[in-house]
């Protein structure tokens, strides 16, 4: 492989120039994906004026963004002023030193060859001292800048994190966690590095102004002429701007894709193995990776191209200075020492400009990131309130759905005229074929999504009039998609109730029949749960997620297939144990196993988002409708030869 690599060096390095590595098939796929993404976005926009529309232009002025940045700097004002002080000092010293140097040269030039050292010595000594001293002020400056920088970028980190958490579930439905994580961590890392450069460039700019002023005092004409190249310079920078912005955007997108693909494939490693997908995975990853390679090179190009250009301009400028300087000297307008000063100091104004141009797109990117940050906290439609300290509601637990309509995507109704009612302490069962909308009902009770029409009342009051966090604190949802968080078993259980004591925890675990297996683990409650709980069996995970909700002691409890991965015997034991607990709480139970719901006070049969019928088990059987059929079917298939009669519980 290495051998062929060598032979293909040219192809591997520059292949992207000539060939399009994405196959047509994939391109089509990508296009489709983009189309759909766009559609989703547009749909969202149609519903509410979406802030997520990709905007080509920035909709915040630089001033807004600087003010935003300032809001982060403010808490560290002291550091900021220190930085400014050291910066000015450094600049001043940096300019002072060559002046002494120039004085020295001027003495020589004046042919003042008097043997006493005393005349030139002070200048030379001052020069050395200033240069050395400057190093210290510069180090102080750098150190302060680094501190300020990490304080600010980490404040931003915290801020962005909590801003992202504030987004509605809808946002996460359309997001990819890999990309999201990558963006947050890498954006801010980028911001940190840009911050470093920013201080440096800013220092240079101050120095530029001072330098130009000083040089001007020596020779206005020479200074003026050598400034003439400035327009040229800005022309180059500006013409590159568009390109660099575009490639940066493309790069960012591709980089995100590679990340997502990488992390998705790490998460799905067992499926990949089971389906012998490794080679295909590698092939696809390689395609994406190469695509990113191409855009990285393009992005790199936009940055490094400034190097040769500015080197050339620098030399060009040098020629001009030499040319004009010679003329000026010959016509006795400047001294040779001043002339040399130009040579020494022209870097002082050349380099700042160069670094400005070189980092220009970095600053562009910084503004871009800043804007994303600023916007992420402005998108009010997508944001949930964050008064997390609020107490749970002291609610009765009456719940009523009145003609509730709901859709995830506009024009695709999922729930239609859902109407049912339950009083405190009652048990409602939602049954129906898969995809009927049962989980959706649970989600809208949690207010993960907003309904489109109708009303949901809790204790007679509209669901949306409650405080969101208080509401969620009073409702417990055992979700169909069990998700344990990386950490210990205890941490997972305490998610619902941080102050739960060990005895409370064990009690909840007893109820869900999970004590035994946890006791067998080497570290008991403190055993590690790996990502998504993949080191536990599916049933064990379900039991823990059930216990977690019990610990939160909710007033209204929703069990969405809470025991689907548990065997009938264990399930029966769990049911017995929680029966007492559910006695005076309203509960909504969703299950395909009809044995689970026989005891309910109200059975709601849903199909395709509509309620077909509702009533108690007995009533529904007598109605001879869909429930009757469903029940019979279940009974027939689930009872084999010898298990003829099913016990109905109540």
């Amino acid at each position, binding site marked *: 492989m290495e051998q062929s690599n060598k032979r293909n060096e040219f192809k591997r390095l520059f292949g992207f120039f000539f060939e399009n590595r994405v196959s047509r098939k994939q391109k089509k796929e990508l296009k489709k994906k983009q189309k759909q993404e766009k559609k989703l976005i547009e749909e969202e926009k149609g519903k509410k004026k979406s802030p997520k529309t990709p905007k080509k232009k920035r909709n915040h002025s630089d001033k807004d963004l600087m003010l935003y940045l300032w809001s982060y700097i403010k808490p560290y004002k002291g550091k900021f002023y220190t930085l400014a002080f050291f910066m000015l000092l450094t600049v001043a010293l940096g300019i002072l030193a060559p002046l002494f140097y120039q004085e020295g040269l001027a003495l020589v030039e004046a042919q003042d060859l008097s043997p006493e050292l005393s005349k030139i010595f002070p200048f030379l000594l001052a020069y050395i001292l200033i240069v050395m001293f400057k190093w210290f002020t510069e180090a102080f400056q750098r150190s302060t*800048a680094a501190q300020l920088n990490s304080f600010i970028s980490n404040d931003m*980190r915290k801020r962005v994190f909590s801003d992202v*958490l504030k987004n509605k579930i809808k946002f996460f439905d359309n997001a990819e966690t890999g990309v999201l994580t990558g963006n947050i961590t890498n954006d801010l890392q980028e911001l940190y590095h840009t911050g470093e450069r920013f201080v440096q460039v800013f220092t240079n700019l101050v120095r530029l102004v001072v330098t130009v002023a000083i040089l001007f005092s020596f020779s206005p004409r020479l200074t003026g002429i050598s400034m003439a190249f400035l327009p040229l310079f800005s022309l180059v920078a500006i013409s590159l701007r568009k390109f660099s912005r575009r490639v940066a955007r493309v790069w960012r997108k591709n980089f995100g894709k590679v990340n997502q693909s*990488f992390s*998705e494939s790490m998460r799905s490693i067992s499926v990949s193995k089971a389906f012998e997908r490794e080679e295909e995975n590698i092939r696809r990853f390689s395609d994406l990776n190469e695509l990113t390679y191409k855009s990285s090179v393009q992005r790199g190009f936009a940055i490094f191209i400034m190097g040769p250009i500015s*080197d050339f301009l620098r030399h060009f400028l040098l020629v001009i200075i030499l040319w004009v300087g010679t003329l000026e000297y010959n016509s006795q307008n400047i001294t040779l020492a001043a002339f040399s000063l130009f040579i020494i100091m022209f870097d002082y104004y050349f380099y700042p400009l160069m670094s400005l141009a070189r980092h220009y797109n970095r600053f562009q990117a910084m503004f871009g990131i800043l804007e994303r940050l600023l916007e992420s906290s402005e998108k009010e439609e997508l944001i949930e309130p964050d008064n997390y300290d609020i107490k749970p509601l002291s609610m009765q637990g009456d719940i009523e759905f009145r003609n509730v309509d709901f859709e995830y995507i506009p024009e695709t109704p999922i729930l239609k005229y859902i109407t049912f009612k339950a009083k405190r302490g009652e048990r409602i069962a939602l049954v129906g074929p898969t995809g009927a909308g049962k989980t959706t009902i649970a989600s809208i009770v949690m207010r993960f999504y907003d309904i489109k029409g109708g009303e949901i009342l809790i204790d007679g009051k509209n669901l949306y009039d409650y405080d969101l966090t208080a509401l969620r604190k009073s409702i417990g949802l055992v979700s169909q998609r069990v998700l344990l968080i990386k950490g210990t078993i205890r941490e997972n259980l305490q998610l619902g109730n941080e102050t739960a004591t060990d005895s409370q925890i064990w009690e909840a675990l007893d109820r869900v029949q999970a004590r035994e297996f946890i006791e067998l683990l080497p570290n008991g409650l403190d055993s590690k749960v790996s990502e998504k709980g993949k080191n536990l069996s599916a049933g064990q995970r379900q039991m823990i997620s059930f216990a977690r909700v019990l610990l939160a002691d909710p007033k209204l409890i929703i069990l969405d297939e809470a025991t689907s991965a548990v065997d*009938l015997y264990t399930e029966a034991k769990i049911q017995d144990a929680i029966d007492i607990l559910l006695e005076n709480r309203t509960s909504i139970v969703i299950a395909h196993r009809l044995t689970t719901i026989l005891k309910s006070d109200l059975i709601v049969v849903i199909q395709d988002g509509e309620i077909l019928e509702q009533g108690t088990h007995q009533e529904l059987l007598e109605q001879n409708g869909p429930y009757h059929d469903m029940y019979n079917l279940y009974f027939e298939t689930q009872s084999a030869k*010898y298990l003829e009669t099913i016990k109905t519980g109540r």
Partner: protein
Amino acid sequence: MMNGRRWVAKLAFNYPIATTYVIIFSLIEVLLFILPLSITADVIEAVLNGAVISDIRGKLFFLLGLAVFQALLFFTISFLNEVVAHRITTDMTQELFESLQYRSLTYHDGKDVGEIMARATGDTRTVNIALSPAVRIVLEVFVLWIVIFILTGMVHWILLIWSIVIFVVFVLATIRYSLKLVPYTVDLRENFGELSEITNTCFTGVREIKSFVSQPWAKRRYVKKVEKYRNIELATGKKGAWFYPILVVTFFAGTIIVSSIYFLYQGLFNVSFGDVIRLASLISLLTNMSEELGWSMEYLIRGNTSADRIYAIIDESDPGIHSDGEVHFNGKNATIEFKNVSFRYNDDLPWALKNIKIRVNHNQTVAIVGSPGSGKSTITKLIQRLYYPTKGDILIDGKPIQSYSNKSLRSHIATVEQDIFLFNTTVKENIRFGKPDASEEEVIDAAKLAQAHDYILALPLGYENLIGEGGVRLSGGQAQRLSIARALLVNPSVLIMDDGASALDAHTEIEIQAAISEILKTHTTIITTHRLSIISKADVVIILEKGEIVGLGSHEYLVRTNHFYRRLFERHYQLPPMEGKSEAPLIISPEESE
């Protein structure tokens, strides 16, 4: 011994021409950059001696020509450097990805995705910066020093010695400084990994976090990491700010400039005005470059740390490694036999399976039942060879499972997993997962078998619909049917359904069963389930409890004899009377089970 640095070097020399070009020509390029300084000094000297514009015009044009040439050379170098650097990091990412693909599940169980991702993304970028331009800058600084030696040597040998002394001090100081910085960068990268890990954890768990209103908890966890990271960043930043070797260079620059002026002033050693200018501009270039060196060294160190971190994963030993077998499994006789198999996921954990003895004949359907954590899924994973038995042997078609090649084995086994993992692509791509080149018809047929076709068509974009990360836009049962379709498409000889109907309603389940009943007759099928409808149709039922087999036989037999089996149903059904004590035959053959 291979380490990150060597690995990167090895990768770089996969592109020998470009790498050599960059190294050699960047040395030359510095010289071309320095040459104008010298010409400038000459010009000034000439002017001092009364030259007029026409005398120096030639020099100036030469200078201009040189500038063009230098710019072109610089362009090619930085372009190639950039290309090679990105190529290397792309290769690194690829190698990392590939090496992880082939690691055992035992290995992956102990790994965290967030952590690996931090390496795959953050660390590769650091390496990239180290490669371009940090390495080049370091190289250039060295060339600059050599030029300084020559120039000072031309003035006086004492100055040469002085610059050599300074150079040595400078190099030593730089090394010392760099070594001190290393632990900081290691710490920094490690904590960065943790940071991205926690971010990732919180975002994947966002639905749970929201439903428990545990945002404060999540934030606390996050803030703790951020603050730790910040403290390390602060320490590193402070350390980086005091790149003291520069002080040495600054002092040196001061002395050289001062002494050259002094020499000129005193008329010593034939030092001319031009020499002073030459030295001064060169030295100020040196100080500027040395400042860049501080930054470059920091990135080199970071790059080195990052390369080590990435390489550490590539180089890491795989605790579950087994070499691939040679035998080709043709699926003609998919008999599976467990011979006293015991298994645990890791040495500290209790046994997940103890002394399992079973035999599943070709085309038999076996149902495994048992309470949560009893080891059902573990058995299915062992059959797929995702893990190897800790003790005992698994024989497939009479040969140990280890002797088969991965490819042939897995291409004949398909699974409906208990933890369904769906990809954030289209429905079609998800179904095609096990057979990427499957035709449209095959996909649709599989979807029809799995009773998924209808709902797929009802999605806004049908088979082209994106299903969201992990299939969030699908209901539980819809997701499960996708994974059934995915498994059926492969048309394996061994079909494993690990609780593959748990999210389905009775009606859908019956339809699927009806659709695949023909297929099942020609497949060896292993089903773990809690559904009586499935269990009762199996040829053999295995009852597991705490990793041990506590019952084995047909449904009719077990329901009358086995206490564990009866207790599954006795709550809900009227059971036939118990007949005698349960005594399970431990090895079964078709005769016994019928």
